């Protein structure tokens, strides 16, 4: 399994508070990975660093077969490299329709003039329908995203993530606010996505993580506490002390 993303020796300090402390994680080409940890363990900051929102004080973040450093890139460049992110709180463009939201996310040239002279084609329309089908929003395509329910917004955001067709998906608490049936659907979707690309899921819900049935990384105070299968890490005494035991 070749490495897609390599985070090594990364530290971040906010006003004296060490959010990430010498963190090293590597993610494979087509891998499903769950990242768990108590509040303040640095899960979101970890994602911020990969997506370029936060610049680390020290450390390296190496991406892809050509071993590019993500630290020199802006957020949009990183996104164009093929890293998609779903936020904890669903952030869709509420004033626009579901179709517009998806069309914006669709993998296409991102330059202003490409977009200005962009013409709809059958292929893109078909792709949008396909994604809408997958996330169960076919009937809602002309609706404004702001009118969707919370769960539907989560789906829309996942749909936008899929539309980007990224090589690495960073998913922050995807199952929050979903019904059990929806969770199941989400699990299936993530597992399917992980067959062709890398998926990193940050999640609190142990049941959800168990259902993903993948390698788990436990973060604590900004660094990796344990790594392995869920069963393996739940038996780890450190993990029990800081997280599960409480």
């Amino acid at each position, binding site marked *: 399994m070749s490495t897609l993303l390599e985070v090594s020796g990364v530290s971040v300090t*906010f*006003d004296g*508070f060490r959010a990430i402390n010498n963190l090293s994680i590597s993610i494979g080409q087509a891998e499903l990975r769950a990242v768990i940890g108590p509040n303040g363990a640095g899960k979101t900051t970890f994602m911020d660093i990969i997506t370029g*929102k936060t610049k680390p004080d020290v450390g390296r973040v190496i991406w892809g077969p050509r071993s590019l450093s993500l630290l020199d890139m802006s957020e949009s460049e990183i996104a164009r490299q093929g890293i998609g992110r779903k936020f904890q709180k669903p952030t869709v463009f509420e004033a626009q329709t579901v179709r517009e939201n998806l069309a914006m996310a669709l993998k296409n040239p991102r330059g202003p003039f490409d977009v200005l002279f962009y013409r709809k084609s059958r292929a893109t329309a078909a792709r949008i329908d396909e994604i809408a089908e997958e996330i169960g929003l076919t009937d809602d395509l002309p609706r404004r995203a702001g009118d969707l329910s919370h769960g539907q917004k989560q789906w829309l955001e996942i749909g936008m993530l899929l539309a980007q067709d990224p090589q690495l998906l960073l998913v922050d608490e995807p199952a929050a606010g979903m019904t059990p049936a929806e969770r199941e659907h989400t699990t299936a979707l993530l597992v399917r996505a992980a067959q062709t690309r890398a998926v990193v899921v940050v999640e609190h819900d142990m049941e959800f993580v168990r259902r993903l049935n993948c390698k788990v990384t436990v973060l604590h105070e900004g660094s990796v506490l344990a790594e392995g299968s869920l069963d393996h890490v739940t038996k780890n005494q450190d993990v029990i002390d800081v997280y599960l035991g409480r």
Partner: protein
Amino acid sequence: MIFRLVCVAFAICLGLSAARAQAPATPLQDVLQQNADAVANPSRGTVDSLIAALLESDLDGVPVFLERWRDRAVYQRVSDGLFFFGTATDGGFDLTDVDTGADAGRATSTEVSELRPNAGVRRVIGGALVAFQLLDNDPARRVAALDAIARSPSDDQLGPLRRSIEDEPDPALKDRKIRLERLLAARYAESEAERITAIESLRGDLGVDARAVLNLILTSSPAVFATMPTDRNIAAVLTPGSDDLSEEAAYDQLVSADLAPPLTGVEPIKAALIAAIDGGQVAGIPVASLTTDDARESAYEALAAAGAVPPLVTLEDQAASLATHSFVLLYAEPNKAITDAARETLDAIGMQVARNQAADLALDGLSLASIYFLAAIGLAITFGVMGVINMAHGEFIMMGAYTGYVVQLFIPDYTLSLIVALPLAFAVTFGAGVAMERLVIRWLYHRPLETLLATFGISIALQQLAKNIFGTQARPLTSPAWLSGNLTFNEVVSISMIRVAIFVLALMFLGLLIYILKRTRLGLEVRAVTQNPGMAASMGINPDRINMLTFGLGSGIAGIAGVAIGLYAKVTSEMGSEYIVQSFMTVVVGGVGNVWGTLAGATLIGFLQKGIEFFNPSNTLAAQTFMILFIILFIQFRPKGIVALKGRAAGD
């Protein structure tokens, strides 16, 4: 003037004492009569012995006489040859006695002859007078004499001045005499060594007059030579075409020294051609074809070849002439050792003046910084706590200033009115701020851009209201007498008391705000709301109340700033808009939500503005332009200002 009055008083005293003596003693008249011819027809040859005789007599009336004599107010009666002081009245002269000052009747212009000492004689008389005055018992007259010397120094004053130093009882006056002696000696002393010593003793003297003396010694004038002279005191050799001497100026020198013919420029060619127009042709060339300078030049050359005009002197000729001459600046002072010493001393003084100017500039910058701090801190607080920009902040400053003006209408005592105006301005603008927050801003939280525009609406309404109430002309806000002077450190460094007071006020507010923010419950709550409004609300802090109070506080400080600004600037309905942009800049540069940030921003902007104005003093508009460009660039490097909140608190 004072000198004159003193003279008159002196004369009256003399008259009184003479009257008491009962005997008409006329000692001065006697001395004058002994030298009657020298007095009546003074010349450079005779005046010295006459003055020596007068001095020898040691009479009290001598200085007054000398003065009147110099001022051509002494008359000789034709009938008996006696001398009188006289004043011309219509058609005749009122005469007074030279000794007693008593009225001596009237005379017509035929009965008396006016004594008219010539300029040379008057100079000698003046010198003698100075000697008297410098030794006078009345300090006021000695001061007046020193003033007179400082005003128009001359070589003959040096001797009397030196002689008067030793017996000078007043230490301050003695210092002044010594300094004046140095200044005179630098220019007029006999020997080279003496002058150089005097010049070098001026080192460290910041007075304008010292620099003026040195500059006089260093006076130079341009000159041109075919070969470089060796026996002249040359200040500088100039190269034509350099910044100091343009080629045109150099050539003009040559022309005016008759060393070269004037250049045949565009205008002379044109004039010559027009003069030579003959039947639509010039030297056989049709006039209509002379539409380029080249064509005109060749037509002129054709004329010159025919001998009708002097030959063309071109730029090449000019360059050739310039190359064969030397252009120099010559010192008026022939002695090189002296000019060198003066140059060195002047440079040293220049350095010192520059250092002091820097200090003065720093003081100006500090005062401007404190004004900006006062104007901006209220804005910074409201922006920091509530995230809203109050475009009407400038109008609150204006309201404060007008409050001060209205208070002065009712309380004529300026000190008292200031004491009343400051808290009242705070109260008025605090109320206005709270009202605005309650009525408008609180409905617009989460919409900062709309707040900006709504407060702008309030700003134009308030500005126009003020215009309707107080009119368009500037209203005075007079400062009390104790604030009207200057605080002077030396000849270069000084600052007006109002600015010192504003600085103190700014310091007080800095202290007060830091106390409120760091040491009080209100400050704690304000800081909590600044850093995380949601969390603060969930901890039982009522953000509504905090917002209202902070807005009131910010506005109140603007009111106080208004009174302070009104004291030195004019109070108009538009004064707020003059400060609002600078206040924004201060907040943006300093960083949001932090008193120290505002302080840093105000300091940077104040000093920068003064600095730019120093380098470009004639053009405050350009200074402001550069200032803003600088700020736009500054934002590139520190988008969050000098003192930026970092990490999660900053909200990214």
